[in-house]
C-alpha cells in the first residue's frame, strides 16, 4: 500500500511539474510578486531545492519531492497556488468558523457519499434478493433492465436529465441550490450519485443469491423441512451478502472521490467541486493534494475488502 501511494505521489508530482507556472506567478488579478520576493519565498518553501534527488551533496533526500512527501505525511499539503494564504489541507478539511469538522468541504462530500451509499444499499439489496427469488419473471427482468441502465448510463447524464426535468420543467428543486441545510436538498444529488452503485449492488446481490440458492446446504435445509423464510434469512442471505458487504468500502470511496461532476452540476459545496475549480484555475498544488487524498481513500478502501473477507468468511485468512 505504501509503495503504491509513493508511486502515485511520484507520478502526480512529476506531471504537475511539467505544467507551466508556479505558486507565485499565476494570479493575474492580484499584484505580481517581484523577483527578489519570489526568491525569498522559494527559499522559505524549499522550492529552490532540486526536484527529486539532491546530488549536490548533503542529504540526498533533501529535495522538493521528498520534502513534499514528508510534509504530506505530517498532514501538510502545502500552500494553494491560487487561494493565497491558505494551505490545501485547510481548504479541504477546515470547517467554517464555529462549525464542526463535517461542515468542511471534505465533510460535505463524505456525507453526500454516505447518503448515496445508504440509499443504494437500502434499495439495491432487497431488489436483488427479490429478483433472484423470482428468477425469470417480469419482476426479475425489470430489475435487470434497470440495473443495466444504471451500470451503463454515466451519472452526469442522469444528472442532466433530472436537473432539466425537476428544476427546469417542474420547478421542484432549484437549479443552483444555495441552501444545503435542509435534508430535502441533498436527496436529488444523492440519488443521482448513488444510482450506478444501486444498479451494481442489485446485480451483485441477485447473482450472489442465485449462486447460494444452488448450494447443497440450502437443499439440506429444505430437506430438513425448514420454512422458506428461515432458509432465506438464516442460510441464504448470510452467505449471499458477503460479497455485497465487502464492496461497501470501495463503493463509498468511489462515491466520495467520484462525486466531483455531480457536485459541480448541483453546486454542492464539497471537496469535489473544489477539485473541479482547482482544475479550471490550474491550481496545481490543490489538484495534487486532492488527488493524493483521493488515492489514499481508494487504496485504503481496497484494503478493507481483504480485511472484511477475513472477518465475514473464516475460510479466507488474511496473511
Amino acid at each position: 500500500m505504501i509503495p503504491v501511494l509513493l508511486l502515485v505521489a511520484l507520478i502526480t508530482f512529476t506531471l504537475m511539474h511539467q505544467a507551466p507556472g508556479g505558486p507565485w506567478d499565476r494570479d493575474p488579478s492580484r499584484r505580481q510578486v517581484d523577483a527578489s520576493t519570489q526568491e525569498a519565498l522559494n527559499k522559505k518553501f524549499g522550492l529552490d531545492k532540486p526536484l527529486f534527488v539532491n546530488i549536490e551533496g548533503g542529504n540526498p533526500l533533501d529535495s522538493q519531492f521528498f520534502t513534499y512527501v514528508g510534509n504530506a505525511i505530517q498532514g501538510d499539503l502545502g500552500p494553494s497556488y491560487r487561494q493565497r494564504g491558505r494551505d490545501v489541507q485547510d481548504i479541504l478539511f477546515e470547517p467554517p468558523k464555529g462549525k464542526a469538522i463535517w461542515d468542511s468541504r471534505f465533510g460535505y462530500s463524505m456525507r453526500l457519499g454516505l447518503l448515496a451509499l445508504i440509499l443504494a444499499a437500502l434499495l439495491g439489496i432487497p431488489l436483488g434478493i427479490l429478483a433472484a427469488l423470482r428468477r425469470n419473471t417480469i419482476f426479475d427482468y425489470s430489475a435487470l433492465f434497470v440495473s443495466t441502465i444504471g451500470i451503463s448510463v454515466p451519472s452526469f447524464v442522469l444528472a442532466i436529465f433530472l436537473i432539466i426535468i425537476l428544476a427546469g420543467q417542474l420547478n421542484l428543486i432549484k437549479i443552483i441550490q444555495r441552501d444545503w441545510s435542509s435534508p430535502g436538498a441533498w436527496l436529488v444529488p444523492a440519488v443521482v450519485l448513488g444510482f450506478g452503485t444501486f444498479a451494481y449492488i442489485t446485480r451483485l446481490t441477485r447473482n450472489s443469491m442465485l449462486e447460494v440458492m444452488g448450494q447443497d446446504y440450502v437443499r439440506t435445509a429444505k430437506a430438513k423441512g425448514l420454512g422458506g423464510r428461515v432458509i432465506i434469512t438464516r442460510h441464504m442471505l448470510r452467505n449471499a451478502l458477503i460479497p455485497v458487504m465487502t464492496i461497501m468500502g470501495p463503493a463509498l470511496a468511489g462515491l466520495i472521490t467520484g462525486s466531483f461532476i455531480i457536485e459541480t452540476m448541483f453546486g454542492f459545496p464539497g471537496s469535489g467541486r473544489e477539485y473541479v475549480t482547482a482544475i479550471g484555475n490550474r491550481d496545481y498544488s490543490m489538484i495534487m493534494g486532492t488527488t493524493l487524498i483521493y488515492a489514499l481513500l481508494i487504496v485504503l478502501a481496497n484494503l478493507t475488502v481483504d480485511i472484511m473477507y477475513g472477518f465475514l468468511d473464516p475460510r479466507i485468512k488474511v496473511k
Partner: protein
Amino acid sequence: MTTTAQTQTPSAKSASAAETAKVLSRPSRSFWRDAWSRLLHNKAAVAGALVILFFMFVAIFAPLLAPHNPLELNSGKGFLPPMWVENSSTGKAGTPEFILGTDNLGRDVLSRVIYGARVSMVVGFIPTLIIVVVGVSLGMISGYFGGSTDNLLMRLTDIVYAFPDLLFFIIVMTALRATALGQFLNGLFLLFVALALVNWVGVARLVRGQVLSLKEKDFVLASRAVGAKDTRIMIRHILPNSLGVIIVAMAFLIPGAIITEAILGYLGLGLRPSTDPTDIFITSWGSMLLEGQTAINNQPWILLAPAIAVALVVLSFNFLGDGLRDALDPRLRE
C-alpha cells in the same frame, strides 16, 4: 461424419439408419458462424449494433448531414429553442431552420451534436485499437514465456491498477495540456495516450490468463509435436482461441473511453473546441455539456442533445457487449 461412415452396408436396416443419419447430420458449422447466429437472435444486441452503425455513419458523413456549419455564428439568433417550442423562456420561437435550436452564439445545436459524434467515435475506437494491440502482445508474451518478463509485467499492472483512472486522466490532461503533445490533434492525441496507458493493463491480464490455460491444452501439445515454432503456436492456435474474450473486452472498453472523454470535456480538459472550419474535430459532446451548463433554463437542448447522444451510444455498446459475451462464451451467460 462417423455415423455416415458406419452405415455403408447394403442391408435394408442400415439403409434406414443411413437415412436417419442424413436427416440428423447438418453441414458443419464453425464456432464463429454459431456465435454469429446466437448474436443475431439477441434483439438488444442487434439494436445496439444498429445504433452504433448509425452513429458511425453520422460521424463519417457529418459535413453532408449537418444542416448548418457548426461554427457559423448567427448573430441575433442566439438561444433559439428547438423548432417545436413556440415560446421559450427567452420569448423566442423555434424555427424549422434550427431543428434543435441554437446556442448562445447562435450556432446550430443539431449540427454540433452531429460533429460531436466524430470525436466520440474516434475516442472510442482508436485508443481501444492501441490498447488491444499492446495488451494482447504483452499478455501473450507474458503468459506464454512466463519467468521474469511475466513477473515484471504483473508488478507493472498492479501499479497501474492502484492508480485511480479518472484522477490519472485529469492529472495528465491538466499537466501536459500546454505542451506540444497536448496540442496535437486539438488535444485528442494526449487523450488517446492517457487512455491507452491505463487500459492496456486489463487486456494484458485477460489475455495472459487465457494463454496460461490454453497453452496446456492438447492441441497446443499436438502442434508442438508436429514441430511448430512458438510464434506459430501463439498466432495460429492461441490467438484465435482468445479472440472471443478480446472482442468482448473491446466492446466494453469503447463506451468507457467515450464516457471518459465526455467527463474530461465537461471539465474543460478534453478536446480543445476549434474555430477553424478545416478541422475534422470541431466540438465534442463533453465540450457541449460544458458550454450548455449555463443555459439550462434558456435552451436546455444544448445539454440534452449531447447527453442523450452519450447515453444512447454507451447503452448500445453495453447491450452489444452483453450480447457478444453471451454469443462468444455461452458458459458465461448469467
